[in-house]
C-alpha cells in the first residue's frame, strides 16, 4: 500500500483522479436514492403549491435572511411536537425551492406558525417586535409597508413550473391578478383565485389595508400559510398516537 502511494505521489493527475473518485462515493450513496425512494418522493393528495402572493412573501423571507434565525423543520422529538405541532414530513417541502429548513433557532420554529396568530399581530410584530413581545431580540422591519414589486411574480411561477412545481398555464398567466386578489377580499379576481388554489386559502387584507398591495401583505400571507398546505402531518401523527 505504502509503495503504491509512494508512486502515486509522483503523478499529479493520478492524485487528481484519486481525490475525485474517493470524494464522490459518499455523496452518491447518500443523495442518489433520495430521488427515487417512496419516503422522499411521495406527495399527499391534498398538498397545494404556494399562491403567487405567498410565493412573493417567501422571496421576501429569503431576501431578509429570516432563515438565519428561524427553522421550518419540526423534528420528531416529543418536546418539539408539544411546542410546535406535528413533526415535519418530507412531502411538505417537496416543491420548496430552495428548502428553508434552517439550521438555528435564535427565534422559534415557524413550520407550523400559520394561522396561530392574527394578521394584525404579525404586522405589529414585524414593524416593531418589542411592541408585542417586550423582551424579543428580533430586529424590526419597518420598511415592509412599502408597495410590493410585482415585476417578477409571473416569471417566478413560470420558472418554478419549468422545474416541476404543479403550476399550470392559467396559474402562470393569472399570477399577478391572483396576487392582487388575495389581499383584496372584495375584488372580482377572488373567484378565479379560489378556483385555482382551493377554497381553503386565506383571502384577506393581510396588512389591514385592502387598497394597496404591500410587502407586508405578501410576507404575512406566506407566514399564515406555513403548515397549512396539507393535512398529512396531522393525520400521520393522529395515526401514530392512536
Amino acid at each position, binding site marked *: 500500500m505504502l509503495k503504491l502511494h509512494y508512486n502515486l505521489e509522483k503523478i499529479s493527475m493520478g492524485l487528481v483522479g484519486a481525490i475525485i473518485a474517493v*470524494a464522490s462515493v*459518499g455523496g452518491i450513496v*447518500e443523495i442518489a436514492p433520495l430521488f427515487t425512494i417512496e419516503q422522499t418522493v411521495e406527495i399527499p393528495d391534498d398538498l397545494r403549491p404556494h399562491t403567487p402572493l405567498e410565493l412573493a412573501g417567501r422571496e421576501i423571507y429569503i431576501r431578509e*435572511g429570516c432563515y438565519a434565525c428561524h427553522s421550518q423543520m419540526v423534528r420528531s422529538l416529543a418536546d418539539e411536537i408539544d411546542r410546535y405541532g406535528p413533526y415535519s414530513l418530507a412531502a411538505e417541502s417537496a416543491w420548496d425551492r*430552495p428548502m428553508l429548513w434552517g439550521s438555528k433557532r435564535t427565534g422559534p420554529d415557524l413550520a407550523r406558525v400559520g394561522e396561530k396568530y392574527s394578521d394584525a399581530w404579525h404586522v405589529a410584530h414585524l414593524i416593531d417586535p418589542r411592541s408585542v413581545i417586550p423582551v424579543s431580540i428580533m*430586529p424590526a422591519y419597518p420598511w415592509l409597508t412599502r408597495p410590493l414589486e410585482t415585476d417578477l411574480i409571473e416569471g417566478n411561477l413560470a420558472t418554478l413550473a419549468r422545474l416541476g412545481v404543479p403550476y399550470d398555464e392559467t396559474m402562470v398567466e393569472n399570477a399577478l391578478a391572483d396576487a392582487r386578489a388575495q389581499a383584496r377580499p372584495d375584488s372580482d379576481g377572488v373567484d378565479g383565485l379560489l378556483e385555482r388554489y382551493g377554497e381553503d386559502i386565506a383571502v384577506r387584507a393581510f396588512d389591514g389595508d385592502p387598497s394597496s398591495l404591500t410587502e407586508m401583505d405578501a410576507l404575512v400571507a406566506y407566514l399564515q400559510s406555513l403548515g397549512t398546505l396539507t393535512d398529512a402531518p396531522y393525520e400521520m401523527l393522529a395515526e401514530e398516537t392512536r
Partner: protein
Amino acid sequence: MIATLTLRERRIGLGLSVALAVLGLAMAAAARTGPMAVHGGMALILGLVLIFAIGGALYDHPEQGEDRLTRYYDAPTRFGIVMTLIWAVIGMGVGVWLAALMYWPEATPPWPATSFGRLRPVHTSGVIFGFGGNALIATSFWVLQRTSRARLADAVSPWVVLIGYNLFCLWAASGYLMGSTQSKEYAEPEWYADIWLTIVWVTYFVLYIRTLARRAEPHIYVANWYYMAFILVVALLHIVNNLALPVSWTGAESFPVWAGVQDAMIQWWYGHNAVAFFLTAGFLGMLYYFLPVRAQRPIWSYRLSILSFWGIVFFYMWAGSHHLHYTALPYWVQTLGMTFSVMLLVPSWASAGNAIATLNGAWHKVRDDATLRFMFVAAVFYGLSTFEGSFLAIRPVNSLSHYTDWTVGHVHSGTLGWVAMIVFGAIYTLVPRLSGRDTMAWPKAIEWHFWLAVAGTLVYVVALWNAGITQGLMWRAYDENGALSYSFIQSVEAMLPYYAARTLGGTLFLAGAVLCALNCRATMRTAGDRVDATDRPLAAQPAE
C-alpha cells in the same frame, strides 16, 4: 504588480481588463436595475481601473529579463495577504456588530441594507471566503513554488485568480446588502456570481497543475495534496449545490433545481464539506508547510499523513447528513452521517497528533516564538473542534445541541481557534520574508495578538457552550404536570448574558486581527533588501 510583468504579459493583462470591462457593461446594460446591474457596474469600474493602471504603465517599467525565472513569483502572494487582512477586519468587524445586535436589537438602523438578516451572510462570507479564501490562495502559491522548487507557470493567471476571486467576494457581500441571496448557507450568491467563481476556480486549478508539472522534486509534498483536494472538491460541491434556473438571463433571481429533502441533503453535503475542504483541507495544507518550516523539524510521520489525508477525503463526504438528525431525511441517511462523523475522529486526530508530535524537540521555540505558538494552538483547537464535531454528530447529543448556540460555538472554536490561528501563524512567517526582512516591524505586537486571540476564542466558545446547553435543556424541560416548563421567549431571555460575553470575546479577537493588519502594514512599508540565496527555483524554466 505591473512592474513584475513582461511587456507581453502586460498586454495580455490589458486585454483581459478590457474583457472584464465589456462584461461588466454588458451585465449592467442587460439588467438595467437591481443587483445584477450594480454588479455589472462594479465589474466595469474594476475593468476600467485595471485598464488605466496597466495601460498607463505599459512602457513605464523596464522589461523583465530572463533572470526573473530564477526567482519565485511572490507578488500575488503579497497581494493575497493584503486582501486577507482587509477581509479579516471587515468580516470579523461585521461579526462583532451582529453579536452586539443580538442583545441590543434596538441598535438596528431603520434601513433594509443593514438589518441582521442581510448582514449575517456578509459576516460568514467575509470571514470564510474573504479572509479564509484569500489566505488559502495566497499561501498556496507560496507553498506550491517552494515544495516544487519551480516558479509559477505563468504570471498573469495568479492575478486573474486573485482579482477575480475578490470580485466574487465583493459581489457576494454587496448582493446580500441589496437582498440578493439564494438563502443556501455559505452558498448565498446568485447564479452569475457562481458561474464567475467557477471560471476563476478552473483558472486556479489549471495554474496549480501546470506549476506542479514543472516541479523539480519527484514527489508532490503532502501540503499540495491538501491544497489540491481543497481546489477539486470545492469545485465539485460548488457546482452541484448551486445548480439553478434563473428567472431571466437579465436578472439576479433564480430558483435551485433541487427541492425539499433532496435540496436539504445536497445543501448540507455542501455545507459540511465546505467546512471539510474549504476550512479544513486547505488549512491543513498550510499547517503541513508552515509548522515544520517554522519549527525547523520534519513532519513526524509520513504514514500518518497518508492515513489522515485519505481518511479526510473519504469520510467527510458522508458526514453532511448529521445536520439533519430527526428531520424528514430518511433515518438510514442520518445514521450513515452519524457513523462517518464519528469515524472522522481517526484521521482528524491523526493530523492534529502528527502536527503536535512534529514539535517534539522544538518546544522551547513554542515557548519563545509567538508565531509558532499560533500554529501549535491551531493544531490543539483542530483536535478539540474535531472531537466536539464527532460528539455533536451523535444523534441523541444532536437532539439537544441542534438549532442552539452550541453549534455556533463549535463552529467558532474551529474557525477562530484553528483556521484563523493557523492563518496568523502563516502570515507572521510570510510577511517578513515577502518584505525582505528578518522580523515583523513590531515583534512584540505578535505576542499581544496571540493572547488577545486565545482569550477571545476561549471567552467566545465557553459563552456559547453555556448558551447552547442552557437553551437545549430549557426547550425540552417538562414540569410535574407534563407541560413544557418554559416558553420560547424565556429561553431567549436566558441567552442575554452569554450573548454579551460572546460579543466581548469577538471584540478581543477582532482587536488582535486589527493589530495584525497594522503590524503587516508597518512591515510591508519598511521593506528591507534581505535575499535568501537558497530560496529559488531549481526547475529548468522553459524559454518564453
